[in-house]
C-alpha cells in the first residue's frame, strides 16, 4: 500500500499541438479510492497510463510512496491494472492467468496457489479455475481480471473503465462488489471512468477532468453540491443540472436574478459572494439548478411562493420512482425531478413551478466559473 503523488505532470503527443494532460497536480492518500472522471479525450486514461508506466511522462514527476517512478518500468512499479476489455491471456487457463504475475516474480508455488484460491473465493470463480477465458461470460472474465490484480497484492490498483463492457445490471452489481472489495483490501485505487454514476458511487474522492486539465478534486458529495464551474456542474449528476441565462440586479439592497421571463429574489446567504464581484460581471450570469430543486408538485410549489414561475410541460418521462418533466421556461428548457409523483402531468399542459433559489448555483457566463466560492 502506498500513496501516489503527481507533481506538475504533462503529456505531449507528437501529433498534437496541445498537451493531452496539462499540469496535473494531485496527492492521493494511502488507501484512497480515487476516481478520474471526464468525457472521452479528457486525458484521464493518459494520466492512468503514465502512472502505470505504459506511457512516458513528458514533464513533471510521479511518485508512488516516496519512490520517484518516472523511469521505472511497469513491472517494477508494484501496481496491478484492470483493463476495459479484460485483457486475459486467451491461451492460458483462468488459474494460470491469475498466477502468471506471481510466477514471473518467482513467488513460491504453494504461496501462489494459496493466493489464487483465496482471490477466487472472494470473487466466486473457484469453479472456473480450470477453464479458458473464452468459456467465460463477460462478468466472469471481469472477475478473473480483478482476481489477477488482487493476487499480486500491489501497492496501487489501476482500473481503466473496468465496468463499461458489462451490461447495466451486472455493472451495478460489480460496482457494489468493487466498493466492498476496496473496503476489505484497503488498497490505494485509481479508477478511470466516463460514467459520472460510477464516480459518485465509488470514489472516496473524484477528479473531474476536461481537455487535460483538472476541473475539480473533492469528495463526491462536495463535487455534486458545490461544483467549481459549469462543466463540473453539468457533467456530474443525472439528469444534468439546468442552466438558465440571466443577470443579477440590485434594488434597494436586495439582489435579484433576472431575465426576460423571471425576476427571482436571491437569498441573503449569497450576498457576500455577489458583493465581492465586479458589478460588470453581474450582467451575464448563468443560474444552475439541479432537477430536484425545480419543484413541480402543486402542493409544494406554494411553499416557495416568491420563486414561482409559469412553465409548459413538453415531455414526461417516468423512471420508476422518479418522474422527469421537461419544461419550457420561455426559451430555456428545464428538467424537473419529482419523487413519487402524486399528481397527473400531461404534455402541453401549463404548470406553475418553483425554482428553489436557496439551492441555486451561479456561474460567470464568460469564464464558466462558480461565483459562490
Amino acid at each position, binding site marked *: 500500500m502506498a500513496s501516489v503523488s503527481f507533481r506538475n505532470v504533462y503529456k505531449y503527443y507528437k501529433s498534437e499541438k496541445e498537451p493531452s494532460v496539462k499540469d496535473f497536480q494531485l496527492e492521493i492518500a494511502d488507501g484512497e479510492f480515487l476516481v478520474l472522471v471526464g468525457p472521452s479525450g479528457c486525458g484521464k486514461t493518459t494520466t492512468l497510463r503514465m502512472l*502505470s*508506466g*505504459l506511457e512516458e511522462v513528458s514533464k513533471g514527476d510521479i511518485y508512488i510512496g516516496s519512490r520517484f517512478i518516472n523511469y521505472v*518500468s*511497469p*513491472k517494477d512499479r508494484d*501496481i*496491478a*491494472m484492470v*483493463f*476495459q*476489455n479484460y*485483457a*486475459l*491471456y*486467451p*491461451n492460458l487457463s483462468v488459474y494460470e492467468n491469475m498466477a*502468471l*504475475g506471481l510466477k*514471473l*516474480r518467482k513467488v513460491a508455488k504453494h504461496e501462489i496457489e494459496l493466493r489464487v484460491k483465496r482471490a477466487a473465493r472472494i470473487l466466486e470463480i473457484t469453479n472456473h479455475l480450470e477453464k479458458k477465458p473464452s468459456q467465460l461470460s463477460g462478468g466472469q472474465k471481469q472477475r478473473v481480471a480483478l482476481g*489477477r490484480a488482487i493476487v*499480486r497484492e500491489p501497492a496501487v490498483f489501476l482500473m481503466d473503465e473496468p465496468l463499461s463492457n458489462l451490461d447495466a445490471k451486472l455493472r451495478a452489481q460489480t460496482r457494489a462488489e468493487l466498493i466492498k472489495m476496496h473496503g476489505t483490501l484497503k488498497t490505494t485505487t485509481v479508477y478511470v471512468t466516463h460514467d459520472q454514476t460510477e464516480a459518485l458511487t465509488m470514489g472516496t474522492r473524484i477528479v473531474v477532468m476536461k481537455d487535460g486539465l483538472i476541473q475539480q478534486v473533492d469528495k463526491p458529495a462536495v463535487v455534486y453540491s458545490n461544483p467549481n464551474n459549469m462543466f463540473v456542474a453539468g457533467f456530474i449528476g443525472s439528469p444534468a443540472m439546468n442552466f438558465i441565462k440571466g443577470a443579477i440586479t440590485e434594488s434597494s439592497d436586495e439582489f435579484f436574478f433576472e431575465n426576460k421571463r423571471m425576476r427571482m429574489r436571491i437569498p441573503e446567504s449569497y450576498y457576500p459572494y455577489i458583493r465581492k464581484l465586479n458589478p460588470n460581471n453581474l450582467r451575464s450570469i448563468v443560474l444552475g439548478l439541479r432537477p430536484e430543486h425545480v419543484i413541480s408538485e402543486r402542493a409544494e410549489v406554494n411553499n416557495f411562493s416568491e420563486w414561482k414561475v409559469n412553465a409548459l410541460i413538453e415531455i414526461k418521462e417516468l423512471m420508476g420512482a422518479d418522474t422527469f418533466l421537461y419544461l419550457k421556461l420561455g426559451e430555456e428548457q428545464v428538467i424537473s425531478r419529482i419523487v413519487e409523483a402524486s399528481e397527473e402531468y400531461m404534455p402541453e399542459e401549463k404548470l406553475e413551478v418553483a425554482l428553489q433559489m436557496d439551492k441555486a448555483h451561479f456561474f460567470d457566463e464568460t469564464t464558466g466559473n462558480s461565483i459562490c466560492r
Partner: protein
Amino acid sequence: MGAIIYQFKKMSWSEIVLLISLMLMAAFLFLPILFIFNHAFKPFSELFNYPPTFIVRQPTFQNFNDLIMKTSAGAVPFTRYVFNSLIVVVCTVFAVIFTSLLAAYVLSKHKFYFKSLVMGVIMLSLMYAPETVGIPRYLIISWLDINNTYFGHILPFVASPVAVFLMKQFIDQIPNDLIEAAKIDGATELRIFVKLVLPLAFPAVATIAIITIQAVWGDTQASTLFMQDETMKTLPYYISTLASAGTGGNTIAGQGIAAAAGLLMFLPNLIIFLLFQKRMMETMVHSGVK
C-alpha cells in the same frame, strides 16, 4: 443414412441444388489427384494407352523402382536430390517463420522511426513477380559467393514480404491491452513474444509454413540459376529433367519415372494441406476483410 436423409429434408430446394452442383465441382477437381495416384502405379504398357485411363488395371511398383535405381547424367543418385530438397525446405520454413514473426511483431506492436517507410518498402516488394528479380538475385548470390551452397537455395526465400504482411495483419488483431497487461505482470519482451504472441499467432505461422513449403518444395529456379554443381540441385529440378530430351532425359522411357516422381512431389503438399486446412482458412479470413 437416416441422418443424411434427415439433413436433406431440412434443406430447401435451392440449397440442395447448390449442394449437388458443389459436389459435382468437387468431384471434377478431384480428377487430377486421382490421375496422379493411378498414373504412378501404371506399368509401361498402360502409360501410353489411348484413350488414356484414370484407373490403373495392373498396379506395379516398377516406376518407383526405376526412379530410385536410375541416376542422372552427372551420376547423382535420386536420394541426393531428395536429401537436398528436405534440407532446403526445413531450413527455409524455420528461417521464414523466424524472420517474419520478429519483423511482423515489431512492425505491428512497437513504435520506432521509419516504421511506415519500412512497411512501405515491404508492400512495394509485394508487387514484383519473382521472374523480374531473377537477375538481381543472381547478382546478389554470386556477389555473396554462395553459389553451390544451401544458402543459395534458402536466402532468396527468407526475404518473404508475403509472410511478413500476413503475419503483421494477424498480429494486429492481438489487442494491445493484452501485451500491456503482460508487461505489468512482469513479463519481459522475450517472454511476451514467446508465450503470448507466438501461441496467438499460431494460425498465421501454420499458414506461412504451408505457403513456404509449397513454394520451396516446387521451386526449380535456385537449382537452375544458382547451382552449377549437380549434387546441390533439388528434386523438382531433377524431375523436370526426367522426361525432357534436352537435359539428358528419356522422353519415352522417362515417363514412368516422371509419373512416380510426380506423385512423390505431390504427396507432401497434400498431407500438409489436410493437416493445416482449418488454420489456413482462419488466417486468410483474419487477414482479409474484417
